[in-house]
């Protein structure tokens, strides 16, 4: 059963782990074409938010809506979500080609159609048959991004996607995310890098202590706005 959506919405979502509150009454929405930056310090709740959006975690309260449907769409919904977390979801013993082939097939794709172009986009065509364990962090990160995008997801969730990338690779990944958004994907990326967020994101959501402090257009002066938002909670 095919399923698609052009917006994603968190409505008053909270998430508790025992007595610890990871997210508290967060409401946030994004539409096709948005690149939303989730900003905040370590432990702010960014990864929890991404986990909930990815369907790997459930909210303790509140609702998540993908278009006009809730989370119940299961397999059909997961087919439209791509996730790249801090851990790269790659098997180090397998080659780049074997990794992509496995993930393509488990997504119901024809590996012979999607793997070679993905390797080319990752710049790994000449290392396609080398074990991933021999790759640098940047090479793995590029491969992991292509793994997450193999099935052309509508919702692209990225947790620190620029970790370990050099300037050139950051530029390539940024261009890739812009192209995805231009084609109608909803990109939500958690990052610490304010400079990157300023140049790449169309919107930013600042999270701290599980609370959404700001949800506004990105643009100039982001560092100052971020500091102001952080400062307001320090003094609260």
């Amino acid at each position: 059963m095919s399923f698609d959506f052009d917006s994603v919405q968190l409505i008053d979502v909270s998430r508790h782990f025992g007595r610890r509150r990871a997210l508290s009454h967060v409401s946030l929405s994004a539409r096709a074409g948005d690149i939303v930056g989730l900003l905040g310090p370590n432990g702010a709740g960014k990864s929890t938010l991404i986990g909930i959006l990815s369907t790997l975690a459930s909210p303790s309260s509140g609702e998540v809506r993908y278009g006009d449907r809730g989370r119940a769409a299961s397999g059909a919904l997961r087919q439209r979500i791509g996730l790249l977390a801090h851990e790269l979801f790659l098997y180090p013993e397998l080659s780049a080609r074997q990794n992509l082939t496995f993930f393509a097939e488990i997504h119901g794709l024809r590996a012979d159609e999607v793997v070679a172009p993905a390797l080319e986009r990752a710049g790994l065509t000449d290392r396609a048959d080398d074990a991933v364990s021999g790759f640098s962090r940047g090479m793995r990160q590029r491969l992991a991004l292509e793994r997450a995008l193999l099935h052309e997801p509508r919702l692209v969730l990225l947790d620190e996607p620029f970790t370990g990338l050099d300037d050139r690779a950051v530029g390539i990944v940024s261009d890739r995310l812009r192209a995805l958004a231009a084609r109608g994907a909803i990109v939500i990326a958690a990052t610490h890098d304010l400079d990157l967020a300023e140049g790449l994101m169309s919107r930013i959501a600042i999270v701290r202590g599980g609370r959404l402090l700001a949800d506004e257009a990105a643009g100039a002066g982001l560092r100052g706005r971020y500091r102001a938002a952080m400062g307001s909670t320090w003094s609260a």
Partner: protein
Amino acid sequence: MFLRAALLVLRKDFAIERKSLEILVTTLFFAVSCVLVFSFGLVKEGKAPTDAAAAILWIAVAFAGTLALGRTFERERYGDTIRALLMAPVPRPALYVGKLLGVVLLLFATEAILVPLIAILFAAPLLARPLLFLAVLVSGSVGFAAVGTLFAAMLMRTRSRDVLLPILLYPITIPVIICGVRGTAALMASPADEAMAAVWLSILIALDVVFVTIALWTFETLMVD
């Protein structure tokens, strides 16, 4: 879709194991060492205590199986690939079945070495009734692996998983081990007690059905969140 996803997971695990041979070699080494130690301790002048071979076979299978279970899911923990598997648009219990098939095949490979080794060292007529013995061995292995695969998956993100796995696994799988030992012992008796072996086999099959059903039913809930 379900079977295809399970077979893809199995094929992927097989490809990794073919490159590293890590689990197969450690499991075999452990199982063979275990049998050798028992044979030096128990076999006197070429004779072993009655039914010792049956007990040692299943102890070796259980211990080696526990080792294999831990390592199988360690691979999914490293790189957090289990989350990528859970994000795939396939029925999540199919992932469990794929991992289960991998563990069962590893157990079969181990048993293929253990059975002739024990038969020789303990002078045990393990293959006197080959079909019935094979049925007991297969159903016992499936029952043990069904529970073990679920617990190993469940404990994957737990810090003390290496300690907790046997603590949780053995109490639940003791009925499987007992049925396996008694069924094997009945087949080794002289003359072989096929009727009793069939009773133990039917209990084993019933346990397999219960364990696999519960595992398929609970896997998704245990893994997500």
